[in-house]
């Protein structure tokens, strides 16, 4: 029984803890993400969602607990090492390279996945090994026809799409998406939901998200994070009818909105 469980989950988080001063940002989180699904983590502001993602990607070291990716502990690996192992992260605050073109951004992500970059002589701009793969992923998010645009001149929604294309261009096993819908309008959100459901058919996704419509239409599994603790993990339908969740999060957020 345990064997099949292990084989089924790509990422398993075990009793993860992180304190900042006296605040328990991550409080004994245990979570398992099964292969091929979209697993969403929801929770109010300050619940520790980004902190959790940062620990998974290697940006922050947890105080205790363990993270297994693909059956092996990645706790000792740095950010770059985890990225190359197949765990790609997108950021809540858009962090694409504004000074470069869309294509250059995507090519950089492809380059990151292609072994070392101690190549000092051949120019990148006619490197088809990079450009072709990059274009494929830009096509997935619908940016291929604008690939020569400088990123600072495109809309916020398009920058978020580029962020997803870059995560894909790293050819990961699994994507960690930190609020992919952040700051988007209605129409841009629809577009992103479309893109993510396409991507989710092929890759495992763990996403943190505020937008409930997006979460309910995309996710297979939901975990609710409150004050650093996971108070429930279940299917979307179950979570929606869970009274504790209603009380502590869903109800509250509806009133506030």
């Amino acid at each position, binding site marked *: 029984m345990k064997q099949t469980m292990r084989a089924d989950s790509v990422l398993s988080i075990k009793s993860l803890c992180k304190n900042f001063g006296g605040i328990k940002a991550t409080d004994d989180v245990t979570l398992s993400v099964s292969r091929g699904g979209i697993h969403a983590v929801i929770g109010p502001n300050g619940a520790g969602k980004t902190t959790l993602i940062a620990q998974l*990607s290697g*940006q922050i070291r947890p105080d205790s607990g363990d993270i297994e990716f693909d059956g092996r502990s990645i706790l000792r690996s*740095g*950010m*770059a*090492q985890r*990225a*190359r192992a197949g765990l*790609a*992260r997108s*950021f809540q605050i858009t*962090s*694409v*390279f*504004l*000074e*470069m*073109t869309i294509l*250059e951004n995507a*090519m*950089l*992500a492809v*380059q*990151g*996945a292609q072994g070392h*970059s*101690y*190549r*000092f*002589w*051949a*120019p*990148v*701009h006619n*490197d088809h090994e990079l450009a072709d793969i990059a274009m494929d992923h830009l096509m997935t998010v619908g940016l291929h026809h604008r690939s020569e645009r400088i990123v600072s001149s495109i809309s916020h929604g398009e920058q978020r799409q580029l962020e997803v294309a*870059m995560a894909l261009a*790293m050819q990961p096993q699994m994507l960690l998406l930190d609020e992919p819908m952040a700051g988007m309008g209605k129409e841009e959100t629809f577009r992103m939901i479309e893109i993510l459901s396409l991507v989710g058919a092929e890759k495992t996704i763990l996403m943190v998200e505020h937008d409930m419509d997006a979460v309910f239409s995309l996710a297979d599994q939901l975990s609710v994070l409150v004050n650093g603790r996971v108070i429930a993990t279940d299917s979307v339908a179950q979570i929606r009818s869970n009274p504790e969740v209603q009380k502590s999060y869903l109800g509250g957020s509806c009133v506030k909105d």
Partner: protein
Amino acid sequence: MAKPSGTRSVKVYLGMLFLLGIAPLLFQWTNQPFLLDLLSRGLIIGIAALSLNLILGYGGMISLGHVAYLGIGAYCVGIPAYYDIYDGWIHLSLAIFTCALFALITGAVSLRTKGVYFIMITMAFSQMIYFIFLSLEEYGADDGLVIYARSEFPIWMNMEGAVSLYYWIFGLLILTLFFIHRLVRSRFGRVIIGSKYNDLRMQSLGFNTYGYRLTCYVISAVICGLAGVLLGNFTSFISPEMMSWTRSGELIFMVIIGGAGSLFGPLFGALSFLFLEEALSLITIYWHLIFGGLLIALVLFGKGGIDAWLSKLDK
């Protein structure tokens, strides 16, 4: 990213290189040996500025200790010469090896830090070297060391005369420009530029940026060290003073007013810096005042530096 230059500014660059190439003939014809001297010096400092630009302009690593490598390169001529070793190949290899080693060690430490801390620690390391040479009585301490003869090379590439030394400098300049041009457009260069804009993001894309930045730092130091070998030969005299941190500050100024992150900018910066210094000091003894004012104006109003003005030609 490194923007492709338009055709007009490329013509300006090539024209300038052509002029630099025939400059010794012009100066001989007009009988102006002093100008050849000034230009030789300008190009050596220009190469040093180009090497600093590789880490500062492209890589975002602001080093306030880069002249240490200029000094080490010069002492790699001076100290062997003190023991009557004049073989130029020995001088060159010694400079490359010493600069690479020193850059590897100090870079490994400095690059653990960011921003102001990186500036301070590079300055500290260069001051260390400065005081080491200041205390070496054997090699003249603060009186410096006279180099009685230039590095020896096979006859067809000797650097004995002022003109042949100039062509050595010009040759290294061309090689440096071409090398940097290729480097910043390669995969390696993209990683360096990317980590200037957002180092964290580069790591999350799978790049172990520390190793790339350290490599870039070492390359830059070696180029600066080679310029130092030429400087030692040019001045025939070396002293610790040329490694003082204020010199590193001047080098940063040259990179900024020329245009950080552009291929030719730092060369323009170095040349205009030295020529202005020279010209103003002819006019008045209070030239520092005017010079300072000009530098402030350049930084305030000349965004992107001299190179940015030139690329306006393409619009």
